[in-house]
């Protein structure tokens, strides 16, 4: 009985080790599996995955309209105060007063790319872009204003 278990142990050990060696042997002989991207050389053909988190951007359509209502849900969701939203009070043609976005300030130097602001946004106004070459010579350049000049909220977004 002891001998049977002893030999069984050896058999399973050798088998599992050979399975591992088959896998690495496959990778050794199949170079097309290599996932390394040689970055500065392949700048033209660089392909990043859709979910890559480079920086927060605001989505603008062709009429220079965005979907941000200035609700500050993203500002509240941010764990380290990366986002600062400055709002203004607009008066609609009917005479009603309404809160609207004035400036969306985004501190890239504080951001940890946790994606919580994008999840929190009720109108999907912001998203993560996959640009990643953020180095600058002055830290103040990392403070960005996300809404483009003269942009306004798209009609029908509450």
């Amino acid at each position, binding site marked *: 009985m002891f001998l049977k278990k002893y030999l069984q*142990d*050896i058999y399973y050990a050798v088998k599992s*080790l050979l399975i*591992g*060696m088959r*896998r*690495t*042997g496959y*990778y*050794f002989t199949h*170079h097309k*599996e*290599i*996932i*390394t991207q*040689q970055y500065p050389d392949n700048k033209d053909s660089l392909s990043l995955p859709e979910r890559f988190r480079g920086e927060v951007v605001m989505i603008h359509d062709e009429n220079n309209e965005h979907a941000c209502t200035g609700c500050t849900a993203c500002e509240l969701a941010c764990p380290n105060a990366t986002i600062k939203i400055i709002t203004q009070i607009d008066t609609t043609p009917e005479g009603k007063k309404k809160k609207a976005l004035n400036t969306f300030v985004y501190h890239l130097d504080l951001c940890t790319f946790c994606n919580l602001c994008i999840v929190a946004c009720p109108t999907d106004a912001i998203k993560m872009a996959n640009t990643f070459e953020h180095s600058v010579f002055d830290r103040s350049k990392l403070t960005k204003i996300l809404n483009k000049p003269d942009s306004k909220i798209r009609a029908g977004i509450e």
Partner: protein
Amino acid sequence: MPSLENIADIIHTWLNITFNSTTALLIELVIVAVSAIGLFSMLGLILIMMERKVSAYMQVRLGPNRVGPKGMFQTVADTLKLMVKEGMTPNGADKFLFNLAPFIVMIVAMVILAPLAFAKNFQLWDLNIGILFVASVSSVSVIGILMAGWASNNKYSLLGAMRSGAQIVSYELSAGLSIITIVILTGSLKISTIIQSQSDGWWIFKGHIPALIAFVIFIIAVTAETNRAPFDLAEAESELTAGFHTEYSGMKFALFFLAEYVNIFIVCVLGATLFLGGWMPLHFGTDTRFNELMDYIPSSLWLFGKTFFLIFIIMWFRWTFPRLRIDQLLNLEWKYLLPISMFNLLLTTLMAIMGWHF
């Protein structure tokens, strides 16, 4: 056809004509020393490059590819860097032992080189106990490792060295027993006789299952003896930073690093000599046409081909298997490898007495 044997003969005759025999001998000694150092440095460059490329491909990476064509000069650049770096000695270290240790490890590797046959009739010293010499001298290297660990005055170094000592002492047993398997089949400890006995087929083919088991055990045991993953507890970078050479830097570190690779080369030459016929070309029975065709390939190429095949297998182990714990390591040796190799020894003895091998 120029071969290593011819070149050695030409140099020998020329020296003996030009000088008297004592001077000729001295000059030959110098030539041998220089070529041994040359071989070592070449091996260091080639094997480290090979290791890095093999590991990269096995981990779905590219590996070094910037210095020179396909990164071939990366190790040259690394060597230059190590040469110009400062070789520091820690304040609390035992200075004498600390500086002596890397040289002991290196000299042991050089001494083992003596009885190995690199090509047909190309051997430094064909002594009649060649295999025994290699097996005994290779265990001296553990003294160098223990010395480095103790003299560093560092807990990581000492732990690494103690582990290395336990490991080498226990795995030498099964390595020795699997060597003895072939010695029984050959009936000689002399390396040239062992190679000559494989002229009609290598022992791994002629020796049936016992030789195969011995070969597998030999490969496992020498992987452990050279302190390589999955048996690299002596270095275990995730636990002990670098084990016994934690405190070494510059050229002294490079010597340890080089000694590791040279030791791999030496045990692989030994494995090729014992099981794969050394420099003997692949011969099958009486098929003379096939045998003659195989003889056209130079014998040195045969040996280096087999050696690099074994080195590749050991590298394959390293980049596939996770590291063993110290208790698992000793379990493997004392509960599995040693009983199996003892049983295997009995089987081989029976086979040799009854003449069941080819």
